[in-house]
């Protein structure tokens, strides 16, 4: 692994991908001015938790944080993966926040990774564990990762604010490197599947969400099936909650997802911000089902082989694949996707060729992979 060079960046934006890219490239990362002008400066709980998680899956990494938490120095070690690891993700962000970087890092470990993550399984800000299972994991097949070895098992549900959920993630390591992908045929939507979960509330909530979502799709497609997933007892976490996660599968095997969850029924803390989110977010199960369905139609309309949430991961996988040309098609570039493209250029030196396709209103991205090899394995 390289090393020696220090990458200096500012602000807390894109911290996850910066840490991932620094770890993979073996360079020290120095982040300054982390929320330096905020009323509550410094790293947040979930960011500190992510750093602890990185230490768990690697050997010899070191993290230095200054007193106020506004400066961070991260020196990556060797990714080792590991078996039967356990990590408590806390309750400030959901497990989805941790799964995204963990998936990429898990692929380049010394051994395969098996880890239990505890915390919030579904919330409004991050991709849920359901979407991760139905949409994110199948994406890796395009890059030559065997999907049989990938697994995400939901053991207990945990809704915000108290969480109490647990999932078990299994990621195989890549023997040498990811293969480049030519993935531009998005196909046509052939079926829509989904999960409506409810925990510590009436099981009827799930049915109400399903009914309103189905009402939208039935005019377009007969093959719509949404499962109900009701949790009781110790499997239901610590807080009540419900939500729906939908996925559209196309004839070429692309997955487009959308999801919506109820905001916590009993908000803790002060009123100002919470009242604001309450006013914005729907609470009725019918509204949640309806909105998830509408968002999915928006994603389908935009086109592309992945939905807007998965653009960043798609670009990362393209840039990390073998030294060959990858070509992918996405709908409208999302702000997070654009930021990721910039980060990839900064850290890996991979620049994408981005061309709009006016006929379908999509964007085609082409790049030559960085030829990243699984160094951790070679060392052993």
């Amino acid at each position: 692994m390289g090393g020696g060079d220090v990458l200096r960046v500012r602000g807390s934006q894109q911290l996850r991908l910066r840490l991932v890219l620094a770890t993979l490239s073996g360079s020290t990362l120095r982040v300054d001015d982390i929320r330096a002008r905020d009323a509550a400066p410094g790293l947040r709980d979930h960011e500190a938790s992510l750093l602890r998680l990185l230490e768990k899956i690697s050997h010899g990494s070191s993290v230095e944080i200054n007193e106020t938490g506004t400066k961070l120095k991260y020196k990556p070690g060797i990714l080792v993966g590991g078996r039967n690891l356990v990590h408590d993700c806390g309750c400030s962000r959901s497990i989805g926040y941790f799964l995204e970087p963990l998936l990429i890092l898990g692929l380049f470990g010394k051994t395969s990774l098996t880890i239990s993550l505890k915390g919030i399984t579904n919330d409004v800000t991050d991709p849920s564990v359901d979407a991760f299972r139905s949409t994110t994991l199948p994406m890796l097949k395009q890059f030559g990762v065997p999907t049989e070895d990938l697994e995400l098992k939901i053991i207990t549900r945990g809704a915000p604010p108290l969480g109490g959920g647990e999932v078990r993630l299994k990621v195989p390591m890549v023997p040498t490197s990811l293969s480049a992908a030519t993935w531009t045929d998005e196909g046509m939507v052939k079926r829509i599947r989904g999960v409506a979960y409810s925990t510590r509330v009436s099981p009827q909530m799930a049915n109400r969400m399903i009914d309103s979502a189905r009402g939208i799709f039935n005019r377009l497609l007969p093959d719509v099936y949404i499962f109900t997933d009701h949790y009781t007892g110790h499997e239901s976490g610590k807080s009540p909650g419900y939500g729906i996660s939908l996925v559209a599968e196309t004839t070429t095997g692309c997955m487009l997802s959308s999801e919506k969850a109820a905001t916590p029924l009993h908000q803790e803390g002060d009123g100002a911000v919470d009242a604001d989110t309450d006013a914005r977010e729907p609470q009725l199960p019918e509204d949640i089902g309806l909105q998830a369905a509408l968002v999915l139609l928006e994603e389908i309309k935009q086109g592309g082989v992945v939905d807007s949430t998965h653009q960043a991961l798609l670009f990362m996988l393209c840039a990390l694949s073998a030294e060959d040309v990858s070509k992918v098609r996405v709908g409208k570039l999302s702000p997070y996707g654009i930021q990721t493209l910039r980060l990839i250029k900064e850290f890996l030196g991979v620049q994408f060729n981005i061309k709009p396709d006016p006929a379908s209103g999509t964007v085609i991205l082409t790049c030559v992979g960085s030829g990243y090899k699984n160094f951790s394995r070679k060392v052993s």
Partner: protein
Amino acid sequence: IEANGKKPRRKKGVEVELGDGAANWKEGLMSRAMAIAKNKVNLMHLVYGRPGAKASQSSFKGSQVDGDSDESDEEELFRIRRDSQKGASSTGIDGNDLDTEDCSKLYLDPSGLSDWKDDEKIESIRDRFVTGDWEK
């Protein structure tokens, strides 16, 4: 993603057919104009910045300049920083906010969603489904 004031580079010659259909050129004018308008944004420049211009290149790295120091309120010792949580736009493409929330999920405003109960809207994405026209 908005166009950053670039003039359309490509202007395709309009094919004018003479004869009885002299006004044929008007057909599809809208769609042609839309195609040109879409090409107007150079996505490479939008994402990576213009090759010559240094300003946009450095802006995403976060060279934020705060002009709040030279205001004439020296008698006040303490000033409250503006609340970055509320003022910040959630997009963060232009890099004005260093501390954009690190979240891959795109938040679509429910009120901004189209009304998909409308028949025309439903038909407009019919061909994206297997129930639509396979030729397209």
